[in-house]
């Protein structure tokens, strides 16, 4: 956000009359192009310029990254991947050169990353891990010491300036690894110094034993005490679920309910990486073959991020740069080998023609196997194969980008019966309706997925949104949606809800609607409120909406709101009315009556349905007023009706004349009906004059 604002003001200063929206739309592509530059330099740093170039090309069109960097995806991730790669690049550069300046640069990159995305935790764990591996493999050097210490200390101090992070670097369990490695490095350096001072091996070993035991003991005690006293917070659920993919499913339904947090399927790996998936192991092979500090880093980055990508679909994004880099190494190294083969071969043939077939031994050095027949042809064939693969990759990327990532997710498109394109713009229709035709202070209740959209496009307050941290809050909405209408009404009254929004795909066959998400609402609601029990909504463990569905299911609020008056509609030729196209069944409850809500708006394809929560009947107030008399009653009545009438935008209140005999004009039509129907129960209040 700050980045976009800075860019905006910069452009405005240069008298480019850009709109802030245009800046926001183009932020992600701009950073993506920067990422390709960084990828080139990173590739150059870990392998050579060829690998850098290939990496830049690969990452420029890789679907896994394009998914977050298309124009209009104004998200933190777009900037964050750039910051992530930049931090890694600068760190590797610092390790390679041992320069404080690069370390500082990397710390600044880290600071930017921290301010951009919560995924910085990955950096702060990967770098210590990498350092640890270097220590264990005996690659410890002064360069590493300088790079890590400058990066960690400065990065930590800078990151603490971000309010969102604060003291987490020294307090939370997720950051402890970095701190541990930091102390370990100091210890390592100290030991080296002591060793240098002592000069005696036996003495040193004894000292080492004592120091190591002491250090481990003190560390463990400090960690234990810190955790027990709550000073060091334990790992958060998201972190656990990363390490153990099954954790979320059992413990935090809300994390598991997000499709982006599901474990990745093979198909989506293939979809996002295509040939990179096969080049990745090849690249690893090359890295191991030519092991250096830099290649160790990229190998570790690749492996860990690949693991996380397998745990969560969303983290494919983090793995993408690593996969691109490693694959680039594979491609570059292969092609280089093949082309050198070709070149030397032609040289050999040239020299052969002049000096005879005996050739020089010098040239055979460059040729791994002279004995293989058809080597030259084989190399050409392999080169063509590589180019074929790469061109397939380019085609695939273009296709994926155009098919999956170019259209806005809020506008749905389908093919009509004649092959024409049909656009369902229902979401925006509903949000704009909310924005224009509801009171400015209206509160909308919907499932949290739509929270941001309603806030941004509808400009209305929501009860829960995509950034709601309070699990109970979301559970309350889940509970309201899965209760009977009466109970839900109480909850909605207590939350001061004016409108309820549900997404319904039964008419269009849009499958990611609220009915399909409903089990998660039940689960999340039930996770906090034991009143809601999942088995109540299932029949023999099966989730159904047709006649065989559970009675609780057929009468819960979500079902009622989704299918209200749907039973009158014929959705498909040759099917009974009320045929749900998203689930392919005829619905079980066609005669739905709403008592406390009324349909306020339904979009043209029924995808979004908005209901208005009716105000309570007036008799509620009579209960309040029962014991009061005289002036007290008058006062109370007046205050109630004024606030109430103002709230409901009541038109009748103004008509209350001094001479009118009946004071309480109905606040709304629904309430006024009750007078006739409930005349026995309803006792009119004593005669009062208003505004006397």
């Amino acid at each position: 956000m700050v980045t976009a604002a800075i860019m905006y003001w910069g452009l405005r200063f240069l008298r480019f009359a850009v709109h802030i929206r245009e800046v926001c739309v183009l932020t992600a592509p701009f950073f993506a192009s920067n990422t390709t530059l960084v990828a080139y330099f990173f590739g150059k740093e870990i392998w050579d310029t060829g690998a850098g170039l290939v990496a830049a090309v690969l990452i420029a069109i890789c679907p896994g990254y394009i998914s977050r960097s298309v124009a209009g995806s104004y998200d933190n991730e777009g900037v964050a991947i750039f910051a992530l790669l930049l931090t890694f690049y600068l760190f590797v550069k610092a390790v390679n050169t041992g320069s404080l300046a690069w370390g500082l640069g990397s710390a600044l990159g880290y600071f930017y990353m921290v301010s951009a995305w919560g995924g910085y935790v990955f950096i702060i764990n990967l770098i210590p891990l990498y350092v640890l591996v270097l220590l264990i493999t005996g690659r410890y050097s002064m360069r590493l010491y300088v790079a890590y210490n400058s990066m960690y200390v400065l990065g930590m101090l800078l990151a603490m300036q971000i309010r969102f992070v604060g003291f987490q670097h020294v307090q939370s369990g997720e950051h402890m690894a970095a701190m541990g490695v930091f102390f370990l490095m100091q210890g390592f350096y100290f030991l080296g110094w002591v060793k240098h001072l002592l000069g005696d091996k036996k003495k040193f070993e004894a000292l080492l034993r004592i120091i190591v035991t002491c250090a481990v003991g003190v560390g463990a005690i400090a960690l234990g005490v810190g955790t027990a006293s709550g000073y060091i917070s334990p790992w958060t659920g998201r972190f656990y679920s990363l390490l153990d993919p099954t954790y979320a499913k059992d413990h935090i339904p809300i994390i598991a309910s997000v499709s982006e947090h599901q474990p990745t399927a093979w198909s989506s790996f293939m979809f996002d990486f295509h040939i990179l998936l096969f080049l990745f192991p090849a690249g690893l092979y090359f890295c191991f073959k030519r092991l250096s500090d830099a290649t160790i880093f990229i190998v570790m980055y690749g492996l860990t991020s690949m693991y996380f990508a397998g745990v969560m679909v969303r983290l494919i994004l983090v793995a993408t740069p690593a996969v691109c880099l490693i694959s680039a190494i594979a491609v570059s190294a292969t092609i280089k080998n093949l082309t050198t083969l070709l070149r030397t071969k032609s040289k050999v043939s040239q020299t052969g023609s002049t000096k005879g077939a005996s050739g020089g031994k010098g040239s055979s050095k460059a040729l791994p196997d002279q004995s293989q027949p058809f080597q030259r042809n084989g190399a050409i064939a392999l080169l063509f194969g590589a180019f074929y693969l790469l061109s397939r990759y380019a085609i695939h990327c273009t296709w994926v980008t155009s098919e999956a990532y170019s259209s806005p997710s809020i506008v749905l498109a389908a093919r009509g019966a004649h092959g024409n394109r049909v656009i369902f713009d229902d979401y925006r229709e509903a949000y704009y309706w909310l924005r224009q035709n509801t009171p400015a202070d209206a509160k909308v209740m919907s499932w949290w997925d739509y929270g941001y959209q309603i806030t941004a496009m509808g400009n209305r307050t929501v009860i829960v949104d995509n950034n709601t941290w309070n699990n109970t809050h979301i559970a309350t909405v889940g509970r309201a949606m899965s209760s009977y209408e009466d109970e839900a009404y109480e909850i909605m009254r207590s939350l001061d809800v004016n409108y309820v929004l549900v997404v319904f795909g039964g008419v269009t066959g849009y499958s990611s609607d609220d009915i399909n998400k409903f089990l998660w609402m039940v689960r999340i609601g039930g996770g906090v409120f034991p009143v809601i029990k999942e088995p109540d909504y299932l029949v023999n463990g099966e989730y159904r909406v047709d006649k065989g569905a559970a009675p609780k299911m057929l009468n819960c609020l979500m079902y009622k709101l989704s299918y209200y008056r749907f039973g009158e509609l014929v959705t498909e030729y040759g099917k009974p009315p009320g045929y749900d196209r998203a689930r392919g069944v005829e619905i079980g409850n066609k005669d739905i009556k709403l008592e406390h809500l009324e349909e306020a708006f339904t979009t043209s394809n029924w995808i979004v349905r908005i209901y208005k929560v009716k105000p309570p009947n007036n008799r509620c107030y009579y209960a309040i007023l029962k014991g009061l008399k005289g002036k007290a009653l008058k006062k109370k009545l007046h205050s109630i009706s004024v606030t109430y009438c103002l709230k409901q935008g009541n038109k009748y209140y103004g008509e209350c004349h001094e001479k009118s005999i009946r004071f309480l004009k109905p606040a709304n039509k629904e309430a006024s009906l009750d007078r006739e129907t409930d005349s026995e129960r309803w006792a009119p209040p004593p005669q009062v004059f208003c505004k006397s």
Partner: protein
Amino acid sequence: MLSPVLHRHCHLFLVTGRSEDSRGLGSFQDMARSISMEAAGLTLPFLILTFLTISAASSTNQIQILNAERRIDLSSHIVKVFLTLKVENVMTAPASEIVLAFPPAQADHLALVKAQAAIGKKKKKSYVHLDVNPTELPDAPNGTKYFSISLLNPLSSGETATLEVLYILTHSLEPFPAEISQSESQLVYFRDSALILSPYHVKQQTTFLKTPSTKVESFTRVEPTKFAGRELKYGPYEDHPPYSFSPVIVHLENNSPFAVVEELLREVEISHWGNIQITEHYKLVHAGAQHKGVFSRVEYQSRPSFSGTSSFKHLLASLPPRVHSVYYRDDIGNISSSHLRSDYRKSELEIEPRYPLFGGWKATFVIGYGLPLEDFLFESPDGKRYLNFSFGCPLAETVVDKLTIKVGLLLLIICFHDAVVVLPEGSKDPSAAVPFPVEQRLETKYSYLDVVGRTVLVLEKKNAVPEHITPFQVYYTFKPIFMLAEPLMLASVFFLFFVACLAYLHNDLSIRK
């Protein structure tokens, strides 16, 4: 005879006399005579008289209206009144203007008054446009507002002339009931007087009301009154003195779309590189009876003829021909439901708001398009450039409460409610020629790479109707050299940048040698 309702509603205009002056006295006697005539046997027991000051009296008594025919078109929410007056000068002094009177309530909603005079007889008949200006008469009864029509040739004694007047009223149909549900159709009240309010004596008059359907709930009777088909006829009434008034209320069904643009900002941006860019910001509202209760999509879809009859979902905008790069969007992005049909005479843009508009529902959106410069920008003989562009809202059958046009040099903006014309940077002395009164002011706007900013001429008009779509001109001076300022500036910046790069690369700036 008149119904009691009328008696209740009739306005009384007080009589003030200045009898010293002989002419005044004479006119008084005139009036008194007419009163006695009316009182003697004819229609109006509630007759109202006004005595005006001498001059006014002389001017108002000079003319009498021989025959007045008024046709009121109620078929849409814009009330159009066609008034045909046959006037005669009964005094000796020549009369150069005719005064129209409007009750204050109507005057507030008056969007436009136009007048023309018929010249020649029968087949050779042609019409000449006459100037209409608001004017004041001293001692106007009950805040009556006046417009004076300047005649081409002063009317000499005994001469007659035929005038045709068109005036347009907006917001004059009051929905009753004020709130309707989806299945009800919209009923409105129209209030007016059966007798034409006029400072002159009217010999004979008739009023016709054209209703949008045959369904009329009720109407006030002022005999003779006749309702047949879709026409309600009041009159003919004979011999009514000045300021006669007989209120009538018609309660009728009107399901035409009450599309009102509360605010319209048209920005006309002139670029001398060959393009005029127009951006129109609309705040549209359905100003008919408020929608109440449920909006049911089932009913709206399955019974379109019974459900939401007063709502509308399409709007038609007529744009100039050769229009290009048309867009239609709102705060949250492109609205995909629009169609553009264009031929060499005109372009029609059919737009569909995101949702159907029921009473009280609002929609805001932006329409933008580009036009070729050569169609609209011309050079006047004195070397000034002028833009000839149409004023008014391109949407069919809409009322615009406030129109602003902004015209800018490179940027000239124009509005119906608010029109803005943005002229190109470097243009000077803009002035606008608009055929009706508008508010004008100047602003400065900064666009791409502007240093001094662009002059913006802002034209503002309240209460605009489709009849306001007439061309207007904006004159300004502009030196073509200014067109090159920005490209040259950009080129030099890049040149300097590259030179700086070259210098940096070719000089070793490091401290250590």
